[in-house]
């Protein structure tokens, strides 16, 4: 990669808690050297809505609904290297705890049985993406090039991973950086 061109980086959170993104921001002052090498494309930080052509895409969260599938496929299409970040992207994580509960039972429990808004009903606005039967890890939907485990991966882990990747090295995590929790 030429020295003068900045690496284009996109990130998104699918069925996640944004904890991995918080951990990415937790690299704190290292954001400055990062921004010398990297230009953010679509991310929650820039609020850009469509992913342009990117060198690296980082996906947090599993695939829980139809919109997640669309976003994930858009990332795969536009990112040369796609990274699954965090437990939810890699295994489905905590959202996948719903996988053995019937979706209809889930909806009834949340929207009908519990007291809430007047005239309890299951939301069905056409703008709402339809949920999938289960929550899937991203690698079961598109090809993933790198995995960055953790719930979330620590800021140091993300920094080590990113600096390796940006420098063109195979990312290598130490034992203490490799965690599933």
């Amino acid at each position, binding site marked *: 990669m030429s020295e003068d061109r900045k690496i284009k980086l996109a990130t998104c959170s699918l069925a996640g808690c944004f904890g991995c993104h918080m951990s990415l921001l937790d690299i704190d002052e290292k954001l400055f050297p990062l921004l010398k090498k990297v230009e953010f494309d679509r991310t929650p930080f820039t609020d850009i809505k469509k992913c342009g052509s990117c060198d690296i895409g980082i996906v947090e969260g599993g695939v829980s609904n139809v919109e997640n599938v669309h976003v994930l496929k858009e990332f795969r299409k536009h990112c040369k290297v796609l990274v699954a970040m965090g437990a939810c992207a890699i295994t489905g*994580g905590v959202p996948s*705890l719903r996988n053995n509960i019937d979706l209809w039972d889930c909806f009834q429990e949340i929207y009908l049985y519990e007291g809430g808004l007047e005239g309890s009903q299951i939301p069905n606005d056409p703008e709402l993406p339809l949920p999938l039967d289960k929550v*899937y890890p991203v690698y079961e939907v598109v090809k*993933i090039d790198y995995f960055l485990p953790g719930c979330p991966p620590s800021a140091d882990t993300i920094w080590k991973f990113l600096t390796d990747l940006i420098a063109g090295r195979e990312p290598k995590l130490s*034992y*203490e950086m*490799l965690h599933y929790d």
Partner: protein
Amino acid sequence: MSKNFTLDGKVISFKDGQTIMDAALTAGVYIPHLCHNPKFIPHGSCKLCIVNVNGRNMTSCTMPAGNGMVIENNTSALNDDRKALVQMLFVEGNHTCPSCEASGNCKLQATAYYLEMLSPHYTHFYPPRTVDASHPDIFLDLNRCILCELCVRASRDVDGKNIFKISGRGIGSHLVVNAESGKLGDTNFAVTDKAARVCPTGAILIKRRGYKTPIGHRIYDHKKINEIQAESDHE
């Protein structure tokens, strides 16, 4: 004259009747394993302790040591096979580490760390499994059971209670509880039983101890499973 074999080039002596695993544990050499515990009769089911003996792959926990054997253990080919086995264990159950109280103390997870598993790789089964909370002191979460039979062996051979058994065959194999209701609460299982403390994962958990040791301060959080084995008196 003492008998010995070589393990990754290192000469290891053994006594008659010892398995390759026994001799390796005595010598302080780590061979990955999940269903093996030296206090119990070998089971040979998890296949992680597979080693190459004179050109053939064998489970070291069941294979008697032989004089002059040339054994390979810590090779990239064997560790790749072991990683694939661990990945299959992860997708066959519901192993959601962030929501599991055993995280950090779990041998399945620690073995995956040791083998540098970055993802479960295979398609998840997300099998429907149950949690049995009927016992006053112990949870039985079958989502995390890897069918190692350590609880079966501990309950039968040490506690003398025969509380657990594996039922079914092949992919239908599952852990059952020896009570008419099938519930742990209807057995004489006690928190002091060996079987309550032998599970390598979080399938059998003692209640009211949750997060007593915080995440980050647990057994395998900073030390690899092979280093822990070396420090402990053969588990």
